[in-house]
């Protein structure tokens, strides 16, 4: 009987202690965004509400990457109050699925650290493979091909390719499918090491044209396979 009374006391004490506390409840801890081609940033909003009965103080907010900035409206959240943390990922030349975390530290007694996740699906206008073709010492100066694949949802019909060095020749032809191009590259001479930058310009998007680059080089030693 004494044991049962003790257990009941512990249970009730736990219940009452846990309800008298500060607590941030998040609408979503993982937010997926889909920026468009040409967007500079991918932005996610993490909404919260203080569902406790004490003020929550938000302390450190740390992102997993210098490319992501987290901004908050307020540091002290009163009971019942709502707010949000905005996470902004600078897209730059990133491609594919980008997952960045935001670590939020508060003075909550239970769960003082919350990890939020920004998932940005960055569209890939062109996939260029490989980005670098090279000929080693003594290697025949045969044509090497760079394959350019266009993202399914983009209406690219033409590529304009120029070489920074006229000794490195380029020629563009259509690939195996309408969404593919081939850039055939060949050095006119191999007697000296040199490199060239290939500038690749698709004809889309017209309003915000994007430029890509590949490299081609004759190197002065054997290329590792």
């Amino acid at each position, binding site marked *: 009987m004494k044991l049962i009374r003790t257990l009941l006391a512990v249970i009730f004490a736990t219940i009452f202690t846990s309800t008298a506390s500060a607590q941030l409840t998040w609408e979503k801890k993982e937010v997926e965004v889909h920026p468009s081609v040409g967007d500079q940033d991918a932005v996610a909003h993490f909404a919260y509400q203080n569902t406790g009965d004490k003020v929550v103080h938000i302390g450190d907010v740390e992102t*997993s*990457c*210098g*490319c992501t900035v987290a901004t908050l409206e307020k540091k002290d959240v009163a009971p019942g109050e709502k707010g949000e943390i905005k996470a902004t990922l*600078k897209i*730059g*030349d*990133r491609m594919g699925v980008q997952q960045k975390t935001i670590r939020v530290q508060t003075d909550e007694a239970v769960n003082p650290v919350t990890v939020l996740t920004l998932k940005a699906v960055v569209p890939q206008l062109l996939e*260029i*493979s*490989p*980005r*670098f073709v090279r000929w*080693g010492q003594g290697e025949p100066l045969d044509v090497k091909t760079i394959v350019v694949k266009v993202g399914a949802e983009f209406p690219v019909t033409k590529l304009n390719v120029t070489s920074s060095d006229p000794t490195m020749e380029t020629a563009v032809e259509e690939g195996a499918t309408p969404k593919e191009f081939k850039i055939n590259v060949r050095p006119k001479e191999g007697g000296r*090491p040199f*490199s060239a*930058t290939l500038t690749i310009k698709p004809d889309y998007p017209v309003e915000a044209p994007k*430029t*890509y*680059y*590949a*490299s081609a*080089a004759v*190197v*002065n*030693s*054997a*290329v*590792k396979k």
Partner: protein
Amino acid sequence: MPRVFVREIPLLLALALLPAIGQAFRYRERISWDAPLRAGEETTVAQAQSWGESTLWVDARPEEEFEREHVPGAVLLNEDRWNELLPTMLAAWSPEKRVVVYCSSKGCGASREVARRLREEAQLKDVFVLEGGWEAWLGKRK
């Protein structure tokens, strides 16, 4: 404490230790500090410095950090301006070079991502990530 617990504690500890010993034996090469570093994985400042001029340092940090200070001779290559910076980095590369990519300890996912893209997009061999990043270099520089 009851005698039964005193007898059982060493037995429980021994049972818990058995799988740990098994794992340590099975993966002894991976956890050994003598295990050779494989291309595509991490390298240390000391090892990268021992490679001398065959090391091509690549800085994956934001440009303003690179401008402030960087490993002497390093080239900047980050995902902010990958398209524009890659040709310059590749112009500095040659087949005998070992590429060592570093970033700040805060964002060291950046160096891993840059290393991955160099291996996949530029098809480079011998690409390493600097263990401890820029802070490790600061601590060890001569």
